[in-house]
Structure formats: C-alpha cells, structure tokens
C-alpha cells in the first residue's frame, strides 16, 4: 500500500528463500517496500487480501501452481493489481503467455537489481515491462484456450484420450477435437510434439 512517503508496496510470491533474500535486498533503499512474502499461490491469495500491495512480483514456478494460473485466478476475481512474473530462464513465448494471463511485466531472476527495479517502476506506474530476453512466440501460434491447456497438461501427464474424456467429463470425440485444435495452434501434428512445444512455450 502506498504510504506517506510515496512508497510502493510489493507482495513477493517466491518459494526459494535465497531468491526472496535477493529481492528483499534489491528493494532496500528504494521507493519499494515489501509488504509481504508468500511461498506459494495459496498463501499469496490470502496476503493479497490482507496486505493490499501496489504491485505483485510472482515467480512462475510455484510449488502449488504456475504463476500464470495464479494470476488468471486472481484476475477472475476482478483483481487488477499490476503484476510482474519472474523466471530463471529465457523461455520462448513467455512474454505472450504472461500477457495473456494478465501480467503487465516479466523479469529474469538472472538479472541485476536495477533491471528488476526498472520493471517494477514501469508496471507500478501503469505501464508494461516485458523482458526482451524471452524469445518471441513463433508467428501464427494462437493462444490456447483454458480447455485446450487442460488437455495438453493431461497429455503431458501420460493420460489416454479415454482418461482425458473421463477427467474432463466430455466425450472422446470432443477430446479428439480439442487435441486437433491444440496441435493446429501449436503448429504440430503429433501429440508428443505438442507436449514438447507446450513445454518450450512455458504452457506446462
């Protein structure tokens, strides 16, 4: 929450204690103030309500959920708090994935404090800041729908079409249609290739 000295409240969602320490130290002696630290999405959802931060800084790989799903969940509740997603690696299509999930920025943990601070400043001011080190998603790859994402996650987990149908409570023909559409959007023909591309895009 913004205080009398125009501080910007940041809620950090990160399971790794060393990374949390780095962020804490990086924000020291700046206009940013950590109003809370959560180690997973469940704790973050609680703290968002209680601490009312100005900006969210969220790790992509959380123990209980990926950061994009956490943000989607938050946005569905009507929460429009600016958010920056962090990853350790450059990942193809990550900026697009983050934008589709409702994040206003991305930042690499392999970065320097000033890069993180710049991203937070831009996003806190109402702008966007997507880290250019993430290669762009190949042209023509449309975003997967939530249902298509569910299907590709189940395929990656080794589920058969019948198991996917049972899990999603749909018919096997619907599963085939969803898989065909997913493959088309990912620009591949086989389910194994779809899983590989989905991995590369950070969907899984």
């Amino acid at each position, binding site marked *: 929450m913004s205080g009398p000295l125009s501080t910007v409240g940041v809620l950090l969602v990160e399971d790794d204690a060393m990374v949390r320490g780095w962020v804490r130290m990086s924000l020291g*002696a700046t206009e940013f103030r950590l109003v809370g630290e959560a180690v997973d999405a469940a704790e973050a959802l609680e703290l968002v309500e209680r601490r009312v931060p100005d900006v969210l800084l969220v790790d992509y790989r959380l123990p209980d959920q990926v950061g994009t799903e956490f943000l989607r969940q938050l946005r569905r509740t009507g929460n429009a708090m600016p958010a920056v997603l962090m990853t350790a690696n450059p990942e193809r299509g990550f900026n697009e994935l983050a934008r589709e999930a409702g994040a206003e920025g991305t930042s690499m*943990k392999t970065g320097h404090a000033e890069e993180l601070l710049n991203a937070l400043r831009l996003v806190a001011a109402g702008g966007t800041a997507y880290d250019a080190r993430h290669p762009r998603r190949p042209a023509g790859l449309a975003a997967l729908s939530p249902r298509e994402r569910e299907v590709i996650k189940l395929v990656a987990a080794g589920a058969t079409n019948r198991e996917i149908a049972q899990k999603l409570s749909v018919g096997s023909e619907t599963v085939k249609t969803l898989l065909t559409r997913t493959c088309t959007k990912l620009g591949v023909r086989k389910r194994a290739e779809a899983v590989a591309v989905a991995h590369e895009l950070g969907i899984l």
Partner: protein
Amino acid sequence: MTAGETAGELRSRLGHDLKTPLAVIIGYGDLVGTRDDKETRVEASRMIIQAAERLSREIDAALDLLLPSGSATGSPGEER
C-alpha cells in the same frame, strides 16, 4: 527410470534447479558490486557462498542421473 523420464528429470534439473542458484549468485554478485553499504555487501557475499555450495550439490545430483549406479560423486567402489 526410463530414458524418457531421465531426460525429463535432467531437463527439469538443468532448467530450474541449477539455474536458480546460478541466478542467485549473479544477483547477489551484482549487489556486491553496486551497493555501498557494508552490511549489504557482507550479507550478499555470504549468500553467494551458500548459493555456490547449493549449486555444487545440484550438479552432483544431475550427474548422478547421467552416470550408472549413482557413481558421480564418489570414487569407484566407494559406498555412498
């Protein structure tokens, strides 16, 4: 573990378990070089050492996945 599972596990370790402590080392190293206050520099230096030790352990674990009988970090015949 099948070859596919090993590859997946290795990918996960290389992509996340190794990169995270490496990122931490770079991040704290940046703070040592850019911050003036002694307390921050001392604490950042301490964290660099901790992260390097963690990285060493993660590399051993990744090597164990590649080598048979988990012999990556022990001498031949050594019980682990």
